[in-house]
């Protein structure tokens, strides 16, 4: 197990270098960011030259990348054009997104697995059909539609929850965006759980457990559900990364100053430092989440062993 983890961690290094370099190249492909700083006015040549020198924009791309990585390993992510350090952007954006992701993830796990189990155990009945219809509706409506509709109804019209999150990130204000962010994944989790539960409920070991006279709760939770969770955990693991990076739409709708929004603004303003810095952290999150999923397999299924 230790060696497996070590090998996986070492594998992360080339992936990490490759992704950061690709992002670096892609942001640069958008062109020279200096002109945009001057708006519709032609830049003063002297000032533009000084700005280009400050951000190493005159160097060849590979040298810019090396200079950037050199600083990165000293925990210096550089600054944005507004003079803010990217480290301070990271420090303000990531906790916010982490909270949002956590709320969404809890909603996704609790309701997704709960509904999936319910409908898997009651195949073909009213509960099953309503869950199937409900999830189909959620999957087919785009997130921004759910977002705006819920925001208008719950936040503006009925005034039950705050319409936006804003500066003071409270738990109450995160419920609505958390629900919106979780909705689609929740539907997938429910459907995934339903299928595997339905499949496994006919398995031999379940019949054996029932024949042994174990209480139903124990059969369902310890035997049926645990064996059904492997595909669900795979999905949840990759989804954790997607939730953090993909909250862009939700974050904009609910005025959350998190990773998605900061990244979006970094791209619009062509702030390479912001974009590469944020993506670097996202890549690490993705890699670690995947490793965690692989390790969880062994916990769930004793037959899986990592040498």
């Amino acid at each position, binding site marked *: 197990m230790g060696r497996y983890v070590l090998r996986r961690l070492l594998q992360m290094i080339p992936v990490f270098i490759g992704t950061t370099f690709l992002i670096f190249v892609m942001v640069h492909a958008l062109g020279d960011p200096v002109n945009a700083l001057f708006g519709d*006015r*032609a830049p*003063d040549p002297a*000032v533009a030259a000084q700005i280009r020198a400050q951000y190493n924009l005159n160097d060849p791309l590979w040298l810019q990348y090396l200079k950037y990585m050199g600083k990165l390993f000293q925990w210096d992510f550089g600054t944005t054009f507004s003079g803010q350090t990217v480290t301070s952007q990271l420090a*303000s954006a990531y906790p916010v997104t982490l909270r949002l992701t956590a709320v969404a993830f809890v909603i996704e796990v609790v309701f997704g697995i709960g509904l999936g189990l319910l409908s898997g155990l009651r195949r073909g009945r009213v509960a099953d059909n309503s869950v199937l219809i409900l999830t189909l509706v959620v999957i087919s409506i785009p997130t921004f539609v759910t977002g705006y509709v819920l925001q208008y109804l719950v936040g503006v019209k009925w005034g039950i929850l705050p319409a936006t999150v804003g500066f003071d990130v409270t738990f109450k204000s*995160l419920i609505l965006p958390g629900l919106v962010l979780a909705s689609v994944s929740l539907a997938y989790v429910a459907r995934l759980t339903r299928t595997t539960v339905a499949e496994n409920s006919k398995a031999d070991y379940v019949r054996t457990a029932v024949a042994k006279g174990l209480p139903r709760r124990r059969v369902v939770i310890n035997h049926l559900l*645990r064996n059904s969770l492997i595909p669900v955990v795979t999905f949840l693991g990759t989804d954790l990364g997607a939730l953090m990076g993909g909250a862009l739409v939700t974050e904009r709708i609910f005025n959350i100053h998190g990773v998605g929004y900061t990244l979006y*603004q970094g791209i619009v303003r062509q702030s390479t430092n912001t974009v590469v810095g944020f993506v670097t952290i996202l890549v690490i999150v993705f890699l670690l989440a995947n490793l965690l999923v692989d390790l969880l397999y062994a916990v769930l299924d004793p037959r899986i062993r990592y040498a």
Partner: protein
Amino acid sequence: MPAATRVRWAVIAVTSVALAATGCSSSKSSGSGGGSGGGVVKAWWGDPQNPLEPANTNEVNGGAVENMIFAGLVQYDPKTSAASNANADSITSSDQQNWTVKLKPGWKFSDGTTVTAKSYVDAWNYGALSTNKQVNASFFQYIQGFNDVAPATGSPTAQTMSGLKVVDDNTFTVALTQKFSTWPQTLGYTAYYPLPATFFSDHAGYLDKPVGNGPYKIQSYTRSQQMQLVPNPDYSGTNKPKNGGINLVVYTDPNAAYSDLQSGALDIDNTLSTTALKTLANGPSGGRFLNTPAGIIQTVSFPLYQSNWSTDKAKLVRQGISMAIDRPTIVKTIFTNTRTPATDWTSPVLGASGGFKDGLCGDLCTYNPTKAKQLIEQGGGIPGGQLTISYNADGGHKDWVDATCNSINQALGNNKACVGNPIGTFADFRNQVAGKKMTGAFRTGWQMDYPLIQDFLQPVYTTDGSSNDSHYSNPQFDAQVNKANAEPDQATSVSAFQDAEKMLVTDVPAIPLWYQNGTVAWSSRVNNVMLDPFSVPVYTEVTVS
């Protein structure tokens, strides 16, 4: 059952991490809650693009703050755009080129230090020096010695401009490189604000919490999130705040801000989305909505540096294209009347005395499909056979470009005569424009820096103008602008500028499309909301009920 405990452990671990992460959020909720009580106004804000230094602020979000925390030599009336002295006691010249500025004594920065002539001279020298990388550096180009502190290539050969001299605590002199009679009226622009000594001694500390001499001072500032401003007790000017302070809140999206405005969590919203505008224009806004002209004109420019666009015949084609655009219909359907069809190259906010002349453009800006077709045929057709209008795709320009092309196509009876050409980002678009890479027409817009007809003509259409994107060059036009600048009398100067502007009617380096309006909506908590000619709310005048 060891396996079962392992499962439980895994589940507990996941949920407890989640709970810990959410749990820490609730502890922060009992913050200052500045929005309620005390007459504090919560207003929409966007993240400033550059650090909050006056000479480094050229967009509306940073500009809004600079205007609240600074008072310059002159100020503009929010209704008439007329310039009047603020911190300046007098700005005089006998030859329209060498100016003497006298300050009203005793004005103070909010850190207690006095505003002196040195505060201005140091600030301007800082803004012009190219190694300080200030985006507004070119505003000092008319001052003698600018080329030494910001040479086009290489390092500066001087640290200060020779044209600026401190005479005494309240007097300084400015020598310009050319005659510029309306120069005093330009001094209300952000770039010309004074700076306190702390700006130079503790620059990083200053940027965390900028200090000025204006009606408000900054109480707290969390970058890219919010800024709390309170009235500055040391302010000596006439625009004393009528409220208990302004909370500027950064929004990720115009729709999010509008939702907050509807639910009462926001008081002033001056970035309204098209959807919100449609609702406000038709629905019950309770009169709490304003749609008023701002000093912005949108145009379509032509690459006069391309040989096929610079011929005399191409002039006719450009005139024809202008007449093929049905401005009133586009303004009504695409912009829900938040634009006004343009009839000259300036802006209505200047007023007739300031140089705006309704109808100066004449037939050129009037929709006339038959004449349009005739002129284009007379000019030998569109160069290259097809007109492209390039625009930046990230700025919401697609709709009107498509509508404009549609109008041209209908007038010419050819549905391939004009197409829009989206360019991914604003930066890329500006690079191509600045690099003279355009082969067809492209969108241009001009937001005034100060309410003067000079600002709509000189930077945009003179030969070396800093925003002459079409690279229009007409020696007669340049001479006429210089003549207007040398004219000491305001009215004569304005009419001399208008004579220059009339040359644009035949040369058509750019087609005037429409004047942009500023829009703002507000909550029932606040009253007396208006927009200044720069489409920024006049924060000092807002009252809270």
